[in-house]
């Protein structure tokens, strides 16, 4: 009986000791038993980069044209990595290369953007983006008759997360089409009042013509409608033009109904928004016995691709 009590007492003491030891040890080593995991930063992924929906780029004359670059940016760390990251989007002629373009923008062949517009709500770490570039009318063409035939315009998207992981992706190339266009800044030719059997003499009317495209351009002139006043008319050839001042008829070329290329008149492709322009000088001879009246007509200025 005494033996049983002794065993029981020993059991209780031992158990108490073990329990006390457990709590002491737990207190001492508790910090080292906490599990943890470090979620690393994954690199962003960029996909579906496209320029202008994969179709050729057509520019508008004397102004800018908006061209979109679309891309999808994904990050396994979630949307916060995307919304707080930084981006560089390049749109350039392929011959320039992305590394050169990333240095300095040039309206002829390299455009740089440092932000995109979200074209969808970021979900699951994926963001669809659109970056709009305003291409100048003189951006260089890459079609078959251009100086850069065989090249194309492409985009490179670079994305950097806040913890400095990066990735880049390129688009397929698209053609930028040649644009041949002119801007005649004079809307009409005013010869004033001229009596019959006389001419404008050394007084020329001036029309300024500017290249509004991305190609060299020559000029064709013709009369769409000869000068008429009711049933009366003045022969088309009575109007003369020249690339320099003249005393009618002098060195002028007679206007005709058939388009004629103005000799020696070439407007080279612009390289900036500074106009490349020239002047056409006009004169008129009114034949004898021409009845009085207000004569009106239409002269056509046509741009002609010159390479």
């Amino acid at each position, binding site marked *: 009986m005494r033996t049983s009590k002794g065993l029981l007492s020993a059991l209780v003491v031992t158990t108490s000791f073990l329990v006390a030891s457990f709590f002491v040890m737990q207190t001492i080593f508790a910090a080292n038993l906490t599990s943890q995991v470090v979620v690393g930063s*994954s690199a962003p*992924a960029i*996909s*579906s980069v496209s320029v202008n*929906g994969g*179709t050729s780029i*057509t*520019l*508008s*004359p*004397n102004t800018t044209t908006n061209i979109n670059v679309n891309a*999808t940016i*994904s990050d*396994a760390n979630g949307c916060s990595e995307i919304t707080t990251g930084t981006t560089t989007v390049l749109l350039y002629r392929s011959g320039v290369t992305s590394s050169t373009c990333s240095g300095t923008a040039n309206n002829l062949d390299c455009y740089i953007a440092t932000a995109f517009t979200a074209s969808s709500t970021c979900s*699951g*770490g*994926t963001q669809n983006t659109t970056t709009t570039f305003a291409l100048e009318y003189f951006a260089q063409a890459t*079609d*078959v*008759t251009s100086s850069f035939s065989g090249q194309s315009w492409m985009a490179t998207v670079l994305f950097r997360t806040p913890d400095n992981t990066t990735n880049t992706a390129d688009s397929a*190339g*698209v053609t930028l*089409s*040649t*644009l*041949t*266009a*002119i*801007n005649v*800044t004079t*809307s*009409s*030719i*005013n*010869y*004033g*009042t*001229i*009596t*019959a*059997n006389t001419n404008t003499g050394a007084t020329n009317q001036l029309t300024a013509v500017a290249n*509004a*495209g991305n190609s060299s351009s020559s000029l*064709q002139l013709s009369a769409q409608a000869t000068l008429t006043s009711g049933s009366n008319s003045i022969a088309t050839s009575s109007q003369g033009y020249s690339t320099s001042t003249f005393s009618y008829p002098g060195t002028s070329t007679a206007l005709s109904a058939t*388009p004629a290329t103005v000799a020696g008149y070439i407007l080279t492709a612009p390289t900036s928004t500074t106009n490349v322009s020239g002047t056409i000088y006009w004169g008129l001879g*009114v034949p004898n016995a021409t*009845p*009085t*009246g*207000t*004569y*009106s*007509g*239409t*002269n*056509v*200025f*046509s*741009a002609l*691709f010159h390479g």
Partner: protein
Amino acid sequence: MRVKYLIFIFPLFLALFFLIPASPTHAAFGISPPFLNADHLVPGAKYQQTVYLVQDQPNQDLNIQANLTMPQPGASWISLDKGFNFVIPQGVRQFPVTITVSVPSNVTLGAYSGNLTFTTQPSSAGQVTIALGAQVAINLTIGTGTFEKYSVPLIQFPDILEGQSPTVHVKFQNDGNVPESFDGATYQLYDQYDSVQLAYIQKSSGFPTTAPFTIADYNLTFPLDFYLGVGEYWGVVNFYKNGQVVASQKAIFNVLKATWYQEAWNYIMDEWVYFLIGLVLVLIVIALAIWRSKRK
């Protein structure tokens, strides 16, 4: 005396007046591209090219007259989708005009050239107005040789609904004079982290053919043998021709939640044969019932 003098002088010194009201600065006008070079036409070929008439200030409707200067028989092969007189509506900065060249089968081989001029028609009157024009140089070469040239400028992975199979959108540009198509494709499906491959699909038929000198947009579906649930996935597609990879793309896409009627429609589309058989059986039963009721 004064009247007599005037009557005498009048026919000799007739005055000419050009009253020119002030008008705003002229807008710029042009064309892009300014050429149509079809170097690889064959007898019977049909070639199309779109040119854009462009302007910077589309403040009003603009009347356009087109004029083709080209010797016969070449001139008779050319047509414009807009005709030779049309209007560019106000507000349109880039106006497309598609030029179609329909080469007869019995044509003499050789080169044919001409010009197509587009001229604006000024709406104002009473002055020496200035109209603007732009010209397309047309150069056609008719031969007999086969010319193959194509490109794939765009491959996209559109979002799909749950239960559907992955789809790839392709823009195929055929610049050659023979029909072209892919002859094979592979599609790899990965999870949203691009780390686990979920499917590998091979396709060797069902590729649309793109006619000579045309651009085709089409979708290709890569059938899965399992249900693809809502989420994000990566797709990798490779297109082959003559055993060579000619186009490829890797991109992420979404599988979206489908509504019940979209699921029903998908089911019908997937099992359309059985659905059709069931529908026919139901119609037969209805017809029999009507026939019997009328007989009674």
